[in-house]
């Protein structure tokens, strides 16, 4: 039985050690990170959009993490200041992402605040960004003979969309765009914010 137990104990021991180092210690260390006062919790409209973002799997191609100067070209591209743990205080599930098949979206609301652009881009990415490989999300839109009260109508370039009819955004598309244009992380954060506040995290 001894050898059986030693394999068992060894396997348990190694995985427990890894859990301690990679999960538990960071959890304790990060538990002191408070949400910045300038970062608002998700509103109902943006939260519904975030759910659409997660459900459609946007994070498989778009990251939400800006890297520090000196590590990649994020700063040169104007993607915003480097991200810090406190920027994600309200994010469940996290959407940091591991691919940049498309650009980082941590500050997409700063770079591209136009709802109209985002709606048209979701409907037909290549109409706004020639050469894009992003899938068309046409299923988030409705084609109608004429618009009704409260419809958000797409302003599409000539030749895109059905001729003589209007394309309007379904609720999920509207929520998704509300979420995207809300993505702004411009307030000071990280060590700079702490020293500016006189040593304490505001």
């Amino acid at each position: 039985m001894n050898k059986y137990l030693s394999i068992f104990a060894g396997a348990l021991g190694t995985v427990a050690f890894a859990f301690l180092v990679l999960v538990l210690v960071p959890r304790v260390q990060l538990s002191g990170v408070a949400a910045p006062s300038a970062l608002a919790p998700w509103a109902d409209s943006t939260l519904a959009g975030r759910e659409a973002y997660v459900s459609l799997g946007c994070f498989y191609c778009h990251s939400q993490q800006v890297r520090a100067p000196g590590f990649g070209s994020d700063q040169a591209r104007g993607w915003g200041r480097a991200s810090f743990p406190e920027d994600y205080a309200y994010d469940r599930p996290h959407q940091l992402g591991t691919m940049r098949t498309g650009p980082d979206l941590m500050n997409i609301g700063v770079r591209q605040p136009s709802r109209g652009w985002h709606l048209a881009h979701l409907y037909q990415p290549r109409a706004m960004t020639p050469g894009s490989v992003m899938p068309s999300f046409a299923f988030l839109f409705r084609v109608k003979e004429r618009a009704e009260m409260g419809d958000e109508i797409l302003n599409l370039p000539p030749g895109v969309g059905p001729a003589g009819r209007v394309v309007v955004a379904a609720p999920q598309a509207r929520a998704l765009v509300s979420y995207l244009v809300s993505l702004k992380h411009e307030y000071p954060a990280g060590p700079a914010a702490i020293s500016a506040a006189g040593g304490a995290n505001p």
Partner: protein
Amino acid sequence: MSAAVPVVPVDSPPSDIAMAERVAADQSTRRPVLLFFHSAVVWLVIGSLFGLVASLKFQFPDWLAGQAALTFGRVRTVHLNAVAYGWAGMSLIGLAVWMIPRLVRAPLYRPGLAVAAAWGWNLWLVLGLSAVLLGYTDGLEWLEIPYPIDAVVVIAGGLMASSVLVTVARRKTKHFYVSVWYVLAAMVWFPIIFATANLPIFGGVEQAAVNWWYGHNALGLFITPLALAAAYYFIPKVLGRPIQSYSLSLVGFWALAFFYSLNGIHHLIGGPLPTWLITTSITASVMMVIPVAATAVNFHTTMVGRFGALQYSPSLRFVVAGSMIYTAVSLQGSVEALRGFNRIVHFTQYTVGHAHLGVYGFASLILFGALYFIVPRLVDWEWPSGRLIRWHFWLALAGVVIYVASLVAGGWLEGRAMLDGARPFMDAVNVTKPYLVGRTVGGALMLGANVIFAYHYWLAVRRRGKRRLEPAWSDRLSRPVIAGVLA
């Protein structure tokens, strides 16, 4: 069923007794193992079809844009889960269930538990992947299946583990072969990492750390140890000689246990996590050279002088190719974790190429080899066609080579373009496009290989064709040679 076990007199030669024990072991595992294999082969075909659709979407981004269920983000997710948990997961478990009774010389304890586990595992995947297609996801890579549904697989895994662990406790051997070490450890590791990562208590960057601690360990502490257990079993088995060094295999085991479990956070290099945490994972990734070298040296020195056998044994050919790719993909991973290199390839298709070299080139090739060995012994029928096996091997190998070479080259160029802030982002997209076509070609060949294998598997389990006296691969041998061997 036990009535069919051949009875040998107690004073029989040891080889006869060992043979009878192996037959008894196989009879105890036949039902659950075949169920795991049938399921795995179905998931392989489904998963690779979804993979090809996902790849084609890069060439035709307006294709299948009419339904949310067929958008890239969901098709890709079904692909990953179907091949990782359905194909690799279920065939590896079937393999473990088959190996353990042979290695500990005791029949499987309550095969019904393992049968129930296989059904449970399938139920989990059917429910989970339907949920993903309908838009219900936990939103974490490798952990997409909604956590309430995950309860099903936790129960299934528990049933499976109890059957195997009791079997080992009732063993007749004093000695544990290294494959048993890997199987036992994987059975301890997987439930722990899976249950922990699914706890709904994490958020923000801390959740990202848990996510990748799990994501990498699904490979490092589940798929890899079970695939290595198979390689350690089949290379000596087919060659008919022991593994070169017992102690080296233990060095490989413990170094893998310690270092691999710490690798995960290298998926977040440059990200907003504590630097010490990322550095720990980079260090552990580099240290993986130790277990990988130990295993590679052990396999190679066992094979030396016997490479000719690759011509006649499809099992050996697949397993050895997979083992060599294990060495390559592991060393690639260690380099990929270095900050200077990662700076270029992180966020690019390079990573996707690496993942496929691991799960297909390493784990799946070994699994194919294992199934070529095991299935005839369970269904009492040789594989009907040597030609189909050869087509399978060369298509699978060519497919994965084209796939990985395309994404390694394309991902590198993509990363270089992204790294230059003066170039527009679309440069990185455009430079990758021809390589994504190469990926679709490689993927189509892999799908072709998988479909051929699935068809041949179906022929074998349905016992189609004429009963063969010798394995199909020996078509290659001249008749006089076979006659000589049989005499």
